[in-house]
């Protein structure tokens, strides 16, 4: 019997199996941000174990509320900053150099095929786009990861999602993943890895693959994964060229992680995306999904473009293509948060930021901000947003507020009309 990508990674990283079915894995990356790490740091200090297992494997960023908005968030940032300095962690990203964790860490080349990655953040599953096993964990798992470089997991089962057909013009990775979540349900992949396969994934660039994997957790998945291929190698090449004689060499090395053809899956979902239309969520669960057509005309107060799901350069390009030469409706506040300084800078160079500004968007610095209602665009009671984020829970962007999850193109079109709108109908 062959093995899945996740099983291969588990086999090569196994440190211990204290009980049948419980795998203690060695970690290649422990990622940290200022919301979930400070309590772990405080506990390590309290236990007189203020140490790190390997400073080069820790990557640290302040991203959720940045620059700090008040004394409490400034204190969280300071705890993380002081800790990073104390342990001389080389890869720490502070104000001005910081961005959304699941955008900046891949952009720096830190995530490689075959890696094990944890972070105290549920959307860590994003990094599986590189053929890694990447799981969100709580603060205690993070604490043990920081101290010992290990984390415990149950034996991973994998659900294979085969995406075939041809994506229509104006339909994007976000529409695909919303449709997949609607099929699986919010706990359809609990304790499982979701493997995205098929020609649609093969044709996607890394930004789109990260959008797919980012939302695996919204179906309960431990990690989303894509198979490493030449697209992965091209993305990583500037960081790995010293390790390999050629791109073909890197490709051949990374292909060892690809799931075997006779691997065993817990389930398979075949989706022909040819007839898929732009998707949007209704209600307060990410598996409540309709077509944009069905929801057309629903008024919104705010449009938010950014986040670890859809704040990358490709996403901004798609939104800007819709916004070019158009204005935000008077009834709407448009907010865009490029996910990293590099994305911001590239968007400036490409004229994308100018398009957003000419349309009447507020352009913020890179941060998680409004996505979880912490800063930079919190909703008031009863307000409605269309957002390119990943979670539409009641009150997520502000107490009593409602969120409709959409693609960047749908978000842009909605900003222009003030009601949920299919960009292709503009």
């Amino acid at each position, binding site marked *: 019997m062959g093995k899945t990508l996740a099983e291969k990674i588990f086999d090569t990283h196994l440190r211990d199996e204290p009980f049948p079915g419980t795998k203690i894995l060695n970690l290649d990356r422990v990622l940290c941000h200022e919301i979930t790490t400070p309590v772990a740091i405080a506990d390590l200090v309290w236990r007189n174990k203020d140490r790190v297992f390997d400073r080069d494997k820790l990557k640290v960023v302040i991203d959720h509320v940045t620059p700090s908005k008040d004394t409490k968030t400034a204190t969280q940032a300071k705890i993380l900053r002081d800790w990073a300095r104390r342990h001389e962690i080389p890869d720490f990203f502070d104000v001005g150099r910081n961005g959304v964790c699941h955008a900046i860490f891949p952009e720096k080349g830190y995530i490689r095929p075959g890696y094990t990655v944890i972070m105290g953040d549920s959307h860590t599953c994003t990094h599986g786009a590189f053929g890694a096993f990447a799981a969100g964990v*709580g603060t205690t798992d993070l604490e043990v990861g920081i101290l010992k470089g*290990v984390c415990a997991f149950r034996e991973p089962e994998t659900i294979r999602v085969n995406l075939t057909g041809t994506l229509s013009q104006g339909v994007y990775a976000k529409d695909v993943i919303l449709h997949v979540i609607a099929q699986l349900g919010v706990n359809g992949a609990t*304790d499982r890895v979701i493997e995205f396969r098929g020609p649609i994934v093969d044709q996607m660039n890394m930004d789109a693959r990260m959008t797919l994997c980012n939302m695996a957790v919204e179906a309960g998945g431990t990690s989303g994964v894509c198979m490493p291929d030449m697209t992965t190698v091209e993305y990583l090449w500037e960081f790995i060229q010293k390790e390999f004689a050629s791109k073909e060499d890197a490709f051949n090395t990374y292909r060892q992680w690809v799931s075997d053809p006779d691997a065993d899956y817990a389930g398979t979902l075949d989706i022909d995306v040819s007839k898929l239309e732009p998707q949007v969520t209704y209600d307060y669960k990410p598996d409540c999904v309709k077509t944009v057509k069905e929801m057309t005309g629903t008024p919104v107060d705010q449009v938010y473009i950014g986040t670890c799901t859809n704040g990358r350069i490709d996403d901004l390009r798609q939104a800007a293509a819709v916004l070019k030469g158009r204005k935000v409706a008077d009834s709407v506040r448009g907010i865009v948060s490029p996910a990293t300084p590099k994305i911001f800078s590239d968007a400036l160079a490409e004229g994308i930021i100018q398009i957003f500004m000419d349309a009447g968007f507020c352009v913020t610095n890179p941060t998680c901000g409004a996505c*979880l*209602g912490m800063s930079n665009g919190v909703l008031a009671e009863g307000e409605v947003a269309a957002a390119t984020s990943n979670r539409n829970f009641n009150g997520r962007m502000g107490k009593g507020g409602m969120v409709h999850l959409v693609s960047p193109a749908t978000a842009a079109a909605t900003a222009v009309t003030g009601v949920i709108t299919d960009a292709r109908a503009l």
Partner: protein
Amino acid sequence: MQKTFGGSAIFLDRSDINTDEIIPAKYLTEVTKEALQPYILEDLKLEGFDPKGEVLKKASVVITRENFGCGSSREHAPWVFEVNDVHTIIAESYARIFRQNMFNCGMLAIELPKESIEQLMKLQHSCDVRIEVDLNGQQIKALTDAEEKQFAFDISPFDKALVQAGGWVEFADARY
């Protein structure tokens, strides 16, 4: 050190209760567990449920349905239960990260089959429901003035070891 389990129960009769409902993100700027205490389940909208009510105040056990604790990885969700002396949750199923966070903190996330949860839910209008937990025997008892129901539960040996050790830091530190 192992925590104490069982006690007076509160029923949250809904599936997919998420971590934003358990502890809203705006409180994640707190850097101590104790500071979270007043905000437990603040955003949970459920008929008959009052986050500031007496039933929650005296509860030590939560009984709920499927996919409890879905959403964010925030361990603030188990912590807000911990600092309110709720160390036992009984549900049909959990989101993975929340479940692991519970055991990592040395608390109990007990899974029971749908039929057992249905039987427990039938007790929710009794005035006082008490739960007794026998971790070694893997049994729980639900007691009201009028009746007593008993259920066996499964727990993985690893999760049991975490609860007995008092949490994952203690377990890992002794072993790795």
